[in-house]
C-alpha cells in the first residue's frame, strides 16, 4: 500500500514537473520576447522569434525521450553486434558467423518464418470472416466483443489459459485438458502437445491467433462498413450472389486495410517472446528469435554481442515494413 502511495505521489510529481516545464518555458519565452502590448516591427519580430522557438519547447521532452530510449539503442545495438560479450573488443563479423553456424539460431529462424507465414494469415482470415458474418446478425456486436476480448489478456495469461487446454495426463487417467479430453473421447490417445517437435510451433501459434483475430476483426469490420453501398447494390442488381459480392466487390475495396492488418500482426509476431517463454522456453525445438535474444542477454552472465546480433536480425526483418509505413504516412501528409 505504501508503495502504491509512493507510485501515485511520483505520478503527481511527474505530471507536475511536466506542467511546470511547459508552463514555465512558455512563460519565460513570452517574457523575453513579448508580443502582447507591443506594436509595429518590434512586436512582429518577437512573434516571429517565439513562433520559431516554441515548437521545440513543445517537442523537447518527447524528442529527448525518443532519442534516449529508441534512437540511441538502435545505433548502439548495431555497434554492439560487432563487439564481444562485454561490448569492449571489436570482433568484426564473428558474432554473425557464430550465429549462422548455431543450430539453435537456424531453428529459430525457421520457426519464425513458420510463425510469419501462419499467424498473420490465419488471424487476418478469421478476422475478415468474423467481421463479414457479424455485420449481418442482430447480436453481432456481442459476438464481436467476446471475440475481441482476448486482446486485453496478457501473453502470459493467455499462455496459462492454453497450457491448461493442452494439459496432458498419462493414458488411462482422466484428462483435465480440453484437447486431450476431446482426443480421448473420439478414441485417440492423449499426447503432450507442446513437447512434439515441429507441431508444437502450431500449438503455440494458436495462442497468438486467438489474441490477434479480434484486432483484425475490429479494423476490417470498420473497413467493410466503409464500402460504398452503391457498389454492393449494383452487384446485387447484376445478379451476383453473396459469395461473389464478398470476394469480387468487397475484398478488392479493402485490400489496403488488409495489408495494414497483415503487417501490424507481422510485427507483433516478430516480437513474440512471452508465449514461447511461458509455454516451452524454447525447448522441444520451439525457439524463436525474440526469446533466443532474451536468452543470450543473460545466458552465461550475458553475451551482449550475440544478443545484439540477434536483435539486429529482427530489426532487419522489420525494416521493409517500416519503409512501407513511412512512405504511406508521408504520402498522406502531402495530401493533408
Amino acid at each position, binding site marked *: 500500500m505504501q508503495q502504491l502511495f509512493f507510485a501515485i505521489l511520483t505520478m503527481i510529481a511527474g505530471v507536475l514537473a*511536466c506542467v511546470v516545464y511547459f508552463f514555465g518555458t512558455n512563460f519565460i519565452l513570452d517574457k523575453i520576447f513579448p508580443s502582447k502590448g507591443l506594436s509595429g516591427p518590434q512586436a512582429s519580430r518577437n512573434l516571429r522569434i517565439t513562433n520559431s522557438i516554441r515548437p521545440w519547447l*513543445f517537442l523537447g521532452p518527447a524528442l529527448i525521450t525518443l532519442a534516449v530510449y529508441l534512437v540511441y539503442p538502435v545505433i548502439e545495438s548495431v555497434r554492439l553486434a560487432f563487439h564481444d560479450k562485454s561490448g569492449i573488443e571489436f570482433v568484426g563479423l564473428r558474432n554473425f558467423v557464430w550465429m549462422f553456424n548455431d543450430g539453435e539460431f537456424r531453428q529459430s529462424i525457421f520457426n519464425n518464418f513458420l510463425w510469419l507465414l501462419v499467424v498473420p494469415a490465419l488471424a487476418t482470415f478469421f478476422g475478415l470472416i468474423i467481421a463479414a458474418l457479424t455485420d449481418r446478425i442482430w447480436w453481432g456486436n456481442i459476438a464481436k466483443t467476446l471475440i475481441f476480448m482476448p486482446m486485453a489478456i496478457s501473453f502470459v495469461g493467455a499462455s496459462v489459459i492454453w497450457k491448461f487446454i493442452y494439459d496432458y495426463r498419462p493414458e488411462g487417467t482422466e484428462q483435465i485438458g480440453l484437447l486431450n479430453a476431446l482426443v480421448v473421447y473420439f478414441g485417440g490417445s492423449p499426447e503432450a502437445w507442446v513437447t512434439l517437435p515441429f507441431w508444437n510451433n502450431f500449438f503455440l501459434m494458436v495462442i497468438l491467433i486467438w489474441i490477434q483475430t479480434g484486432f483484425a476483426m475490429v479494423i476490417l469490420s470498420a473497413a467493410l462498413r466503409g464500402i460504398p453501398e452503391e457498389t454492393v447494390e449494383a452487384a446485387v442488381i447484376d445478379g451476383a450472389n453473396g459469395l461473389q459480392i464478398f470476394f469480387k466487390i468487397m475484398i478488392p475495396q479493402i485490400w489496403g486495410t488488409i495489408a495494414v492488418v497483415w503487417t501490424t500482426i507481422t510485427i507483433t509476431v516478430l516480437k513474440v517472446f512471452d508465449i514461447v517463454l511461458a509455454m516451452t522456453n524454447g525447448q522441444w525445438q520451439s525457439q524463436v528469435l525474440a526469446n533466443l535474444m532474451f536468452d543470450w542477454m543473460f545466458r552465461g552472465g550475458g553475451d551482449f554481442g550475440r544478443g545484439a546480433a540477434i536483435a539486429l536480425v529482427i530489426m532487419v526483418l522489420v525494416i521493409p515494413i517500416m519503409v512501407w509505413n513511412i512512405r504511406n504516412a508521408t504520402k498522406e501528409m502531402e495530401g493533408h
Partner: protein
Amino acid sequence: MIAASRSPLAWVVHLSVALLVILWTLPTAGLLISSLRDKDQLAVSGWWTSLSASTQNVVFRAPGPDKQVEKDGKFVISGNVLEGGAGEVAAFGSSSLKPGDFEPGQTAELNGGEKLTVQADGSFEIVSDKAMEGTRGQRIFYQATVPSRFTFDNYREVFNAAGIGASFINSLTVAIPSTIIPILVAAFAAYALAWMKFPGRAILVAVVVGLLVVPLQMSLIPLLKLYNGVGLFLGVPAKTYVGIWLAHMGFGLPLAIYLLRNYMVGLPREIMESARVDGASDFDIFVKIILPLSFPALASFAIFQFLWTWNDLLVAMVFLGAGNDELVLTGRLVNLLGSRGGNWEILTASAFVTIIVPLIVFFSLQRFLVRGLLAGSVK
C-alpha cells in the same frame, strides 16, 4: 444488408458465428470455472464436468485394533469413511485393485476373516469373531460420489501464499505512472507536429512513424548497459521503478504521438485560426482548446498504454528486479508456471487475477479502445 441475410442460409451465419464465439470464449471460461473449483476435484476431472457430481477413488484407514470394542461376543471397529465430509459412497472394496467390488450395504470378507460393511452414508463396521491384532488399521478402499464444490479457497491461497497480492500492487505501481506521465509529453509534441510550422516537421513525423515499429529487442541491451552505468555513477540500484516508468514512456511515445497527431490534424482549422486572430498564442490554443477537444484520443491512448504496461513481461523482466516487492504479476505467473507447473488451482487463480484488471478496463472502455485502434493502424 445483403440478400444473404434474408435467405434460408441465414441460420448458417448464426450458427457459424455462434461456433466461433464459443471457440474464442471457451478457453477463458474454462480458466475461470477451474479457478473456482475445489482443488482436489480440479486435479482429477475436467472443468466441463464440474456441474455433475464426480466420482473419486479414496483410501481410508480405519482406526487400529486398539480402538476395537467388544459387543455381543464380537469385536467391532466402527466409524465413518467420509469423516463428516459431503458426498456418498458409491462402492467399496478391500483392495486397491478392486475399489468398486461391493455395493454399499454389502459385506466384504477381509483376509483375516473380518467382515467389512460400508453404508452409503459412509459409516462402516469391521466385525471379527476374535480380537483383532496388530497396530495399524485396516485400509478401506471406496469410490465416493462428491457433489461439485465451488470455492474461493484457491484465490485465498494465491493471495496469501503465492505472492500474488504483492505482485498485484507492484503491477499497479508500474502501470499507473507509466500511463499518465507520457500523455502530457506526447500531447504537446503531437500538437507541434500537427499544427505548428517549423523546418523538419515532415521528417520528424516520418521518424515517429518509423520508430513505431522498432522492435523492443533492439533497445534492451543498450538500455540495460545505460541503466547499469547510470546506477553505478549515481550510486543507486540500476533496477528501479523510476527506470521502468521512463522506459515504458519511451516505448509508448511513438504510438502516443502518432495517435494524438492523427486526431489533432482532424480538428477544424477555423477554431485555431479564430483564436489566433484574438491574440492567443500556440500555448493558449493548445491548453484551452486542443487539449479538451482531444479527450477521446487521450483516453484511447491511456487504455492502450495501461493494457500494454500491465500485460508487459519483457520490459519488467529486464528493467525491474525479481524481488518480492518488485516482481509484477506477469513475471510472478511465469515463475509459478516453472515452480508450480502442475498445481492448476494455483495457476488458474493467479492467471485470473492477472487478467481481471485488463478485462474490466476492456469491457468498460471498449468504445475508446476500438476508436484508438482504428486511428492507430497506419493507413
